[in-house]
């Protein structure tokens, strides 16, 4: 029977179906951070079940508030750190080596095509960029994942999004996913996998694919997915070269996960990017999206570039191309958080960190902090932030604050102008 990628992953990982429609899957990777894991750890300890199903499949990072800002966040970090140590979890990323979870875990090669991945974080859908089924879950699901290596899901249907056309220079993966969310609405993909196909995706980098899949949850999606191809093989090659005789063999193996030609989709959406403008959100829902030309001129107080959506090296390169040799408006605060130490080092080596600093940006360590109003860039009531993050909910980056979501290019030129601006009207420098 013809199957989608998600159906193939479900079939190969099915552990049990305790009731009709309730699938219990074996997990390949369980990812953990310091915000949602400590309560699971405390509960396991209280139950006398302080165990880990397989320490080699549990990956741990401190990323939301780092360095710790107070006693409470220091305690969360300590609970996670102590737990990782006593269970000999090798892949634990503490301060100095830590980065935003959905950037650092793929960077370390932990995510592979056909994997099942969970984390107590809604943006876990990011990892579907590798052809995995990757879903955000709550603390109880995480706890059972840690203890038993299983998680339960309803069998999801798949929505296919075909993205074709010629990408305008100022348009990026972020603009595409904002357009997709606008099309699907904030719950149009609930209980569904969002599968990205088409020429534009076929030539898109893993970084761009992660940006796309990252925001599938903003349409309610369980996981985003892309078909693993040559680009996936190239990205993963440092980690898989001993498993395959050459890249062609890896590609042939990865192809088995591809959705079959005659598989059944719940819905198919076609997007042509040729005439697309950069997209910007308005209001407090991520499906409230407009062309940048409609909102250009809106003043902002802060510009934030970073997060699991847009804090990778390509994002920093893109922003720096507009910032090079220019200074940001004195009316805005610019903050950039490279998503991982490797992104930071690479940006430094390419002169990008200097471009940001010369333009007037504050460069922070890798952390999620600002995106959810926890640290490193919290808004005051009434303030407006132009942000490359993923949620524009009321108060998301600070009580009473407002967020406009956008790409790194739009964020960069908005910082230059002090108001929302169209990167299509700016000269892009070579980095």
């Amino acid at each position: 029977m013809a199957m989608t990628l998600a159906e193939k992953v479900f079939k190969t990982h099915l552990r049990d179906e305790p009731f009709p429609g309730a699938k219990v899957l074996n997990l390949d990777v369980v990812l953990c951070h310091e915000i949602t894991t400590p309560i699971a750890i405390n509960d396991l300890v209280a139950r006398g079940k302080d165990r880990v199903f397989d320490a080699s499949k549990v990956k741990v990072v401190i990323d939301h508030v780092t360095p710790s800002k107070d006693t409470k966040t220091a305690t969360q970090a300590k609970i996670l750190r102590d737990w990782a140590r006593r269970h000999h979890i090798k892949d634990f990323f503490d301060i100095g080596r830590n980065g935003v979870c959905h950037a650092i875990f793929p960077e370390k090669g932990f995510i592979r095509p056909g994997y099942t991945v969970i984390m107590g974080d809604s943006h876990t859908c990011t990892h579907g960029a590798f052809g995995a089924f990757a879903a955000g879950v709550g603390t109880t699901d995480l706890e059972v994942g840690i203890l038993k290596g299983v998680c339960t899901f309803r069998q999801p249907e798949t929505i296919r999004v075909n993205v074709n056309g010629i990408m305008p220079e100022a348009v990026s993966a972020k603009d595409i996913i904002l357009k997709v969310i606008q099309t699907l609405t904030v719950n149009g993909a609930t209980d569904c996998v969002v599968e990205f196909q088409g020429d534009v995706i076929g030539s898109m980098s893993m970084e761009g694919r992660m940006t796309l899949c990252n925001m599938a949850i903003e349409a309610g999606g369980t996981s985003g997915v892309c078909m693993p191809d040559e680009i996936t093989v190239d990205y993963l090659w440092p980690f898989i070269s001993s498993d395959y005789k050459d890249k062609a063999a890896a590609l042939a193996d990865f192809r088995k996960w591809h959705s079959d030609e005659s598989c059944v989709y719940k819905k198919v959406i076609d997007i042509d990017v040729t005439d697309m403008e950069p997209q910007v959100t308005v209001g407090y829902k991520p499906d409230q999206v407009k062309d940048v030309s409609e909102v250009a001129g809106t003043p902002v107080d802060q510009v934030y570039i970073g997060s699991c959506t847009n804090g990778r090296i390509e994002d920093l390169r893109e922003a720096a191309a507009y910032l090079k040799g220019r200074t940001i408006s004195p009316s805005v605060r610019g903050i950039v958080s490279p998503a991982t130490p490797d992104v930071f080092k690479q940006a430094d080596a390419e002169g990008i960190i200097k471009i940001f600093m010369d333009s007037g940006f504050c460069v922070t360590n890798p952390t999620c902090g600002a995106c959810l109003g926890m640290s490193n860039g919290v808004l005051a009531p009434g303030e407006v932030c132009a942000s490359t993050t993923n949620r524009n909910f009321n108060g998301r980056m600070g009580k009473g604050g407002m967020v406009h979501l956008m790409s790194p290019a739009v964020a960069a030129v908005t910082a230059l102008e002090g108001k929302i601006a169209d990167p299509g009207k700016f000269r892009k420098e070579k980095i």
Partner: protein
Amino acid sequence: MKTFGGKVLFLDRADINTDEIIPAKYLTENSKEALKPHILEDLKIEGFDPHAPAVKESRVIVTRSNFGCGSSREHAPWVFEVNDINVVIASSFARIFRQNMFNCGMLAIELSEKVIGELFALRAADTSISIDFANDKLTVTSGKGCRTFSYQIAEFDKALVKAGGWVDFADAKY
């Protein structure tokens, strides 16, 4: 099994997200009880006061579509649980929130928009809902009238509620 039913808190808006239910700044707490005073603190509904006595007295929430969207934080069901709200009734839920509710042995009941509209029609200061868990029925009562509706929840979700949540269920079975 938890107890279900009591006074109703009506939240007349779609797409209420988990940041509104419990803002991220409280996610640094390591106990559920510490979340208690912050229930629905950032909810954006005209005239809504999270500190009103009606919120504290409520045992059931009735709301619109896509309730609990956004962050995966289980702190959202927890802040309801520590405030003795063990039932949320909506025309639809975000997946993670719905799963978190059943994983905690709590009830997330989906009804059609039409029936949700009928529940809202009985909205009054004293509206209450009783749940007949064994027979999948709920009865709403207020000064405006009394109606009984059937609801459906998946067999598995029902088993989780009976087991007291997913940890106990999974621990016994896997």
